[in-house]
């Protein structure tokens, strides 16, 4: 299947597709457009509120898709209890810090109907295997929105304070957490539980023990048991050393309610994989199925890992007045040797070739061989 002449960026998506298929996921294709309202109503699900819009012929305001998961959630029928999908699409987003929209190549996987336990472990393992396909040196940071939201309920703080507190937790800023909580009367145990989120041991088991000892209610304890079950299954796959508890990792509480995770690769400054359990997104569309998934941002990868090529092509074949048949035979022979070939009448100015060959010379050599 994999042709040696394919570049790594062409091979990787194929490798990932085949990985997802092997676990029973089917490809999902979608249109480039959805109505703008779909994204407006779910704007907090998107990492950035900017959507590229245009007016359709019938006057409806449309958007170039900034996301695929929302469409899958919308299109899932209430009676489809299990739906395992993967996709490879272009999404249109504003990149952080940029003042223009970018087309981003995104691959992702969604497991509609994913229960806790094995289904979560399977998705985590596929996330890990996807990262490993890019680079063996990776980490998957894992968090649990159920734990966070149960802790927030316990603190009984208003929404704006919670927002500020969550941002401070996301930056692991002990100083800003203290500022956010300064006017709020909390018990020592509650305070310790908040601060422990940003200071967990690197070891998975120790981190879980610390989180369990800080739990203030049964929801928090349930979240820990759920993570424990997932990690024990991951141990079967040998993935445990690649997982880290990272409770500063927060996705929007309006949509995400369970396990969430982000994948980091050595040498890349940002997370390139992001996912989690988003049962609440389906609930917003009036559907009861649980759902879990992740997306990989492929754009970030190419620049960092693809070595610039020394040559555009192996052989530049220059022909003059030979017949098309003669040229075709020569091209065929070069391809048969497993080399790439560009046949042209003149040397194209911006092409660099490993070797320039005159078709005349080839034919002359052949003539000599015959004699």
């Amino acid at each position: 299947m994999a042709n040696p002449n394919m570049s790594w960026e062409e091979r990787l998506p194929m490798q990932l597709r085949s990985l997802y298929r092997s676990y029973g996921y089917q490809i999902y294709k979608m249109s480039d457009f959805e109505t703008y309202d779909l994204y407006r109503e779910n704007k907090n699900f998107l990492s950035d509120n900017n959507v590229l819009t245009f007016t359709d012929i019938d006057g409806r305001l449309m958007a170039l898709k900034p996301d695929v998961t929302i469409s899958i959630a919308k299109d899932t029928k209430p009676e489809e209890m299990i739906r395992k999908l993967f996709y490879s699409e272009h999404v249109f987003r504003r990149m952080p810090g940029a003042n223009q929209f970018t087309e981003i190549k995104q691959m992702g996987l969604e497991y509609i109907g994913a229960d806790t336990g094995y289904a979560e472990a399977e998705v985590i393992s596929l996330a890990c295997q996807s990262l490993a396909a890019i680079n063996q040196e990776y980490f998957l940071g894992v968090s649990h929105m159920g734990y966070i939201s149960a802790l927030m309920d316990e603190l009984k703080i208003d929404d704006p304070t919670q927002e500020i507190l969550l941002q401070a937790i996301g930056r692991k800023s002990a100083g800003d957490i203290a500022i956010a909580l300064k006017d709020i009367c909390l018990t020592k145990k509650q305070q310790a539980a908040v601060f422990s989120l940003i200071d967990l041991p690197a070891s998975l088991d120790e981190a879980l023990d610390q989180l369990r000892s800080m739990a203030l209610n049964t929801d928090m304890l349930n979240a820990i048991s759920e993570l424990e079950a997932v990690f024990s299954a991951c141990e079967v796959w040998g993935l445990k050393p690649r997982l880290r508890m990272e409770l500063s990792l927060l996705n929007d509480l309006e949509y995400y309610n369970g396990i969430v995770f982000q994948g980091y690769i050595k040498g890349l400054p940002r997370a390139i994989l992001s996912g989690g359990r988003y049962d609440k997104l389906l609930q917003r569309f009036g559907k009861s199925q649980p759902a879990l998934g992740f997306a990989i941002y492929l754009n970030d990868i190419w620049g960092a890992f693809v070595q610039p090529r020394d040559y555009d092509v192996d052989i530049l074949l220059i022909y003059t007045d030979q017949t098309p048949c003669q040229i075709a035979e020569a091209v065929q022979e070069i391809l048969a040797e497993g080399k790439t070939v560009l046949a042209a009448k003149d040397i194209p100015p911006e092409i660099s070739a490993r070797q320039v060959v005159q078709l005349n010379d080839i034919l002359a050599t052949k003539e000599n061989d015959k004699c």
Partner: protein
Amino acid sequence: MLNIALPTGRMGEKAYRCFADIGYACPGMENQNRKLVFVDEKRGLRYMLVKPKDVAMYVEYGAADIGVVGRDVIMESQPDIYELLDLEFGKCRFAVAAPEGWHDDLSRPLRVATTYCHVTSEYFLSVGRQIETIMLHGSVELAPLIGLSDVIVDIVESGTTLRENKLVVVAEIAPSSARLIANKSSYQFNRELIDEIRSKMEAAK
């Protein structure tokens, strides 16, 4: 190799002292010269001196693994980074300052001169005051004196500059001090070393 971004100027000197005090000194750093990069091959350290407002950018984009930057810069540029420790020097505060005896005319938008546009708009949004932001690159204290703006939003350390320009603080926005920050991805891959630096600095505070 651990890349460390430090701001040029006084905060950078103090920040470097923090690193030197816990055993991460780098030859050549203390000489007064124009070099911007200092490498200690043996220990695997590379210090870079960059503009204070750029430290967060270097760290967010992974050019530096860790850095030291004022909270004022973090509040303004909102980088996606970890903030690991409050180093408790370089203390200052964001404040709104106005000419002595100034009275806010609520019938029209307030003209605010600042180099911190984001902090300014967030603050006035939170207090519900409509403003017109005048973005400057320095010497904002001049703006109200010559009628370019009604008030300014700036960082205030001792208040000397304000006094010399006959300005007074009319509202406090937020406190600031130097912070040890880390790139979110680098932190995962260099966790042991970065945690060690943090705990040593915390102990040395």
